[in-house]
C-alpha cells in the first residue's frame, strides 16, 4: 500500500540578505495513515520549515528547489497552483501552531474561527458550519461548546486556546495533522492534557500526525517513528523505541544525554554538546555534525555520509554508535567545600509570611470592593549559605513574584525578608543599594537581559563602577577574570551582546551577577530560553560556580528536571502558597502533596516505556484565577482526593520527615505528627 504522505528530496531555500539559507536540505520520509511521526532537533534545524514546506507555506524569499516532491495519497502537491493548494490546506493537511496567544485572531469569536475552514472547504451553510464547530469544540474537550461559540480568544485560558486551535485544525477532518510544538508554550500539566487529547483524536479519527518538538520526553511518549533533524537534514530515522534504546547517530545520543532527567543522579555532570549548529548559508562540507561530534574523524569532515541503514532504521553517520550513553557523565558535580549543614545555625536568607497582592485594573464594580490578584499569600522559607532552593509550580503560581521579593526588587505587602539578620523591607535608598551587592539575579531572557548598546566589558564593569570598587585598571582585570570564569574569551569584552549566542549571553548574565561576589543569586528560569544542548552547559556552569564561590541559589523554573538537577531543597508552589517543601529526594520519591505528585507525573520522561505507561494520569483542569482563589485548600478544585474538609479548612504545613513539610489534609504519605510544623523546623534543610 502506498503511504498516505510521501516526501522525497524536499529542499527549501530561503533567500535572505546574508545569502541563501538551505533551511531544509534533501529530506525524504513517508507517513502512513494513523501514524505519528516525530520531527526532533534543536532550534534552527529545519523542523518547522519542513512542516511549512509540506503545506506550501514558505516565508518571503523561500522556495522549494527542484526535485522536491510531496505526494498526498498519490497526488503531487509541489507545483500545484495556489488555488489548488488552498484546497489542500486546512482540508487535507492541517496545522496546529505553537503559540495559542498569537495564532488566534483576537477580533473574531472562536465559533467563527473554528467554522471558517468548514465554510471554506465544505461549501455548507453558516448554520451547518456552526454545528460542526460545536461538534469539534466538544471533541477537543472545551466545556459547554455551544455556549462558548461566541467567546473571544482573550476570554479563554492558554490551554483552552490551544484546544481551540486544535479544533480549527480538525474542523475539516484533515488526513494529516502537523502539530508544530503544540505544547511548548503551555505548563506541564496542560501539556499532558493536550498531548493526551491529540493522541486520542488521532486514533479516533485515524489521522496521520507529524509532531514537531524539541522535547525528547514528548517524543518518547507520543510518536511511533522519529526523524531526528540536524542542520536541515535528517540525521537519523527510526521507530521511537529503537531510537531511544539503540540510536546510532552520535547527535541523537548527545541530544538525549544532555537533557536533565528526573530519574538521574544529580551528582553527575550533564554531558554537553559543545558549540552550536552550523550556519545554513554556508553548510560545512562533510558531516554537518562533525564539528560537535566526539567521534568525528577526518573522513567526517571531508565526506558527507548518506542516510542509509539496515531496514527501516536509517542514519547518516560514518561512525555510528550503539545505544544511549549512561545517564549523566562520569564527572561528579563539584559541591561546595562546606556542604550545607543540616541545620544552619544562622540562615542566610529568611522569608516570613510574605504576602503580595496586585490590584486588578478596571472592573471595579461599586460595592464589590477592591479586587486583587493574590500573588503570594503567606509564604515562608529559609535558605542556608551554599544551598540551592528550587521553586517549581505552574505559571501564575507566584514563583516569580516570590523571587522578586527575595532580591528586593519588589516589597511585600506583609511579611519580612531577612538577609543575614537585616530586614530588607526596612532598607531605603543608599543603604538598600549598598545591600544589593549580596543579592543578584539571573534573568530568563538572554536577549533582553543585556543592554544592547553596551559592550560586554562595560556591562560587566558597571556593577563595579556603581559600587566604586577598584581603579579602572583593576576593574578591567576583574572583567577578564569574570569572563574566564564563565568560559568566554577575554576578547569578548570588546563585543556587543548581539554578537553572542543565547547560551553565551546567559553566561555573560551570570558573570555580571557574580561581579559583586554576591551571597545569593536568584535565577528565574535560567535555561528555559535555551536549546537543550546549551542548557546542559549553563547548568553545569551554575553548579561549578556555586562550588567555587559558596553561592546560594534560588532557582525558579517550571521544569522539574532542571530544578531537581540543581536544587538541594525544593518548594512546590500553588496559587501563591508553598504546598510542599522538602529535599530533592523527598519531593521526587516521597511526595506528600497530591499536587506535587501530579506535577511530577505530568513531566515527560525521555523513555518510551515509562512515558506510555503513565497515560491518562495527571492533573486535570487548569489553575483557578488568583483573583478569587478557592477557599480552604487552593488545590482542591483539581485534586483527585479532595473532600468537604478541603473546602472548609485551610491545611497547614505538617512535618513528613526531617525538613519535609506539606500542606494537605489527605496527604499521600502519613505525616510524622498532626501538629503543624513550626516555621523553624521547615527551615532545617534536608
Amino acid at each position, binding site marked *: 500500500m502506498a503511504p498516505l504522505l510521501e516526501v522525497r528530496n524536499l529542499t527549501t531555500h530561503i533567500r535572505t540578505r*546574508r545569502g*541563501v539559507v538551505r533551511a531544509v536540505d534533501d529530506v525524504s520520509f513517508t507517513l502512513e495513515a494513523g501514524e505519528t511521526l516525530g520531527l526532533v532537533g534543536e532550534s534552527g534545524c529545519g523542523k518547522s520549515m519542513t512542516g511549512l514546506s509540506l503545506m506550501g507555506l514558505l516565508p518571503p524569499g523561500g522556495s522549494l528547489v527542484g526535485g522536491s516532491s510531496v505526494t498526498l495519497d498519490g497526488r503531487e502537491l509541489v507545483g500545484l497552483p495556489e488555488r489548488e493548494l488552498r484546497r489542500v490546506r486546512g482540508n487535507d493537511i492541517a496545522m496546529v501552531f505553537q503559540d495559542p496567544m498569537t495564532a488566534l485572531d483576537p477580533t473574531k469569536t472562536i465559533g467563527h474561527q473554528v467554522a471558517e475552514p468548514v465554510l471554506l472547504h465544505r461549501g455548507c451553510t453558516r448554520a451547518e458550519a456552526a454545528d460542526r464547530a460545536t461538534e469539534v469544540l466538544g471533541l477537543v474537550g472545551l466545556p459547554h461548546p455551544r455556549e462558548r461559540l461566541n467567546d473571544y480568544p482573550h476570554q479563554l485560558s492558554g490551554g483552552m486556546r490551544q484546544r481551540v486551535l486544535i479544533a480549527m485544525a480538525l474542523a475539516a477532518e484533515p488526513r494529516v495533522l502537523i502539530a508544530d510544538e503544540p505544547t511548548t508554550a503551555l505548563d506541564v500539566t496542560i501539556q499532558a492534557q493536550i498531548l493526551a487529547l491529540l493522541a486520542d483524536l488521532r486514533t479516533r479519527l485515524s489521522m496521520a500526525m507529524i509532531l514537531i518538538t524539541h522535547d525528547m520526553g514528548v517524543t518518547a511518549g507520543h510518536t511511533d517513528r522519529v526523524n531526528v533533524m540536524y542542520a536541515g537534514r535528517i540525521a537519523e530515522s527510526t521507530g521511537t523505541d529503537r531510537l531511544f534504546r539503540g540510536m546510532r547517530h552520535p547527535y541523537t545520543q548527545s541530544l538525549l544525554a544532555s537533557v536533565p532527567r528526573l530519574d538521574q543522579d544529580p551528582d553527575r555532570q550533564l554531558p554537553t554538546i559543545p*558549540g552550536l549548529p552550523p550556519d545554513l548559508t554556508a553548510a560545512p562540507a562533510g558531516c554537518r555534525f562533525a564539528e560537535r561530534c566526539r567521534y568525528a574523524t577526518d573522513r567526517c569532515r571531508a565526506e558527507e555520509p548518506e542516510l542509509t541503514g539496515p531496514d527501516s532504521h536509517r542514519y547518516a553517520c560514518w561512525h555510528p554508535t550503539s545505544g544511549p550513553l549512561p545517564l549523566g557523565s562520569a564527572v561528579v558535580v563539584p559541591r561546595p567545600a562546606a556542604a550545607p549543614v543540616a541545620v544552619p545555625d544562622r540562615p542566610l536568607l529568611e522569608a516570613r509570611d510574605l504576602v503580595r497582592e496586585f490590584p486588578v485594573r478596571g472592573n471595579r464594580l461599586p460595592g464589590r470592593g477592591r479586587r486583587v490578584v493574590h500573588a503570594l499569600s503567606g509564604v515562608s522559607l529559609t535558605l542556608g549559605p551554599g544551598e540551592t532552593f528550587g521553586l517549581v509550580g505552574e505559571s501564575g503560581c507566584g514563583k516569580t513574584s516570590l523571587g522578586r521579593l527575595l532580591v528586593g*526588587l519588589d516589597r511585600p505587602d506583609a511579611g519580612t525578608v531577612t538577609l543575614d539578620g537585616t530586614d530588607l523591607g526596612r532598607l531605603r535608598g543608599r543603604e538598600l543599594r549598598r545591600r544589593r551587592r549580596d543579592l543578584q*539575579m539571573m*534573568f530568563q531572557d538572554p536577549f533582553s537581559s543585556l543592554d544592547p548598546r553596551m559592550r560586554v566589558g562595560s556591562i560587566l564593569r*558597571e556593577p563595579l563602577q556603581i*559600587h566604586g570598587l577598584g581603579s579602572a585598571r583593576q576593574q578591567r582585570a576583574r572583567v577578564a577574570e569574570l569572563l574566564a570564569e564563565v568560559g568566554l*574569551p577575554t576578547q569578548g569584552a570588546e563585543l*556587543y551582546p548581539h554578537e553572542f549566542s543565547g547560551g553565551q549571553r546567559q553566561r555573560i548574565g551570570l558573570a555580571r551577577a557574580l561581579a559583586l561576589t554576591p551571597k545569593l543569586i536568584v535565577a528565574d528560569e535560567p535555561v528555559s530560553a535555551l536549546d537543550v544542548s546549551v542548557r546542559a552547559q549553563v547548568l553545569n556552569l551554575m553548579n561549578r560556580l556555586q562550588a567555587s564561590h559558596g553561592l546560594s541559589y534560588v532557582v525558579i523554573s517550571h521544569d522539574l528536571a532542571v530544578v531537581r538537577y540543581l536544587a538541594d531543597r525544593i518548594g512546590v508552589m500553588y496559587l501563591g502558597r508553598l504546598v510542599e517543601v522538602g529535599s530533592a529526594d523527598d519531593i521526587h520519591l516521597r511526595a506528600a502533596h497530591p499536587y506535587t505528585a501530579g506535577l511530577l507525573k505530568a513531566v515527560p520522561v525521555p523513555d518510551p516505556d515509562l512515558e506510555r505507561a503513565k497515560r491518562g494520569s495527571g492533573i486535570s483542569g487548569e489553575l483557578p484565577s488568583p483573583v478569587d482563589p478557592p477557599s480552604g485548600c487552593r488545590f482542591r478544585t483539581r485534586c483527585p482526593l479532595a473532600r468537604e474538609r478541603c473546602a472548609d479548612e485551610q491545611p497547614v504545613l505538617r512535618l513528613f520527615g526531617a525538613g519535609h513539610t506539606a500542606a494537605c489534609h489527605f496527604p499521600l504519605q502519613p505525616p510524622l505528627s498532626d501538629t503543624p510544623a513550626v516555621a523553624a523546623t521547615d527551615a532545617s534543610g534536608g
Partner: protein
Amino acid sequence: MSTLEPLAPPDPAPDPRSETVDASTAARGSGRLSVRAFVRNRRALVGLGIVAVIAAFCFVGPLLYRTDQVTVRLDLADLSPGSAYPLGTDASGYDVLGRLMAGGRSSLELGFAVAFTTSVIGTLYGAVAGYLGGLVDAVMMRVIDTFLAVPGIVLLLMMVSMFTPTLWGIVLLLSLLSWLGAARLVRGEVLTLRTREFVQAARMMGGTGGRIVLRHLVPNAAGVIIVSGTFTIADSILTLSALSFLGLGLPPPHADWGTMLSAGLNSLYDGYWWLVYPPAGILIVTVVAFNLIGDAVHDALDVRLQRR
C-alpha cells in the same frame, strides 16, 4: 530596494560555531551596524548629500560670493538673471543668490538649534516620566497634554505680533512648542525599555535612577530621539518660513526664504519668476532632504532590530 543591495555581502555575524570569539570582529558594534545599514540606504545618502550641499551653500557660499544684503539699491531693483546677478535682484535691489545664502543660514541655524533643545529637554522629561511611572508620570504627561492643547501657530502669531522677533526668540518659542512631541515619543520608548531585564539588572546592582536613565534608557532610546530631531529640523524650517510668509518673521535686514517667497509672489504676475522659484525650490529641497534622512535613520534602526 533589494535591487540596490550588493549580492550576498559577507556575513557580519560572529561565527556561531566556535566558542572563541575573534577579536578582530570587535569593531562591529550595534552602532556600526546601524551606520552600515544607514549608508547602504540610498535615500539616506541623497538626503545627507543635499543637506551638505545646502549647508556649504549657506555658510561657505557668502565667503566666496560676496553680496551686499543690507543697503537698499532701488536703482538695481528687479533685474533679471544675468552675468552680474546670476539669479537677478529683488524689489529692494538685493542680489537673490546672495539672499538665498543668507536666508538659508538663519533657517539652518534655527532648525538645528530647535532640534537640539527639543531633543535634550524632551528626552530628559520623557525618560524621567517613563522611568518613574505611576503618579509622577501621570502628572508630567498631563502637563504635556495641557501644553499641546494650546494651538501652536496662534501662540506664535500672538507672541511675534507682541514682541519684535529675533532668531533666538523664535528658536525659544519653537522649542517650547515642539519638545512636547519628543517627550511623548521618548516616554513611550522608555515605557517598553524599562520592563526589559537589563534595566532590572541595573537596579539589582544598586544603580541609581539617574544612572539607569542616562546610561541605559537614553542610549537605547537614541533611535527615536534622532528620528524625531531630524523631523523637527524640517518642521522648524517650514514654520519659520510660514511665519515669514505671513510677514511676521524676522524683521529686515534679516534675510529669510519665507520673506523672499512672500515678496516674490507679489511680483509673480510681472514675470519676475526668479523671485519665487529659487526660494521655493531650495525650501522644498531642504525640507525633503531632512525628511529623507529621518526616514533612513528610522529604517536603519529597524534593520538593526531585525538582525538581532
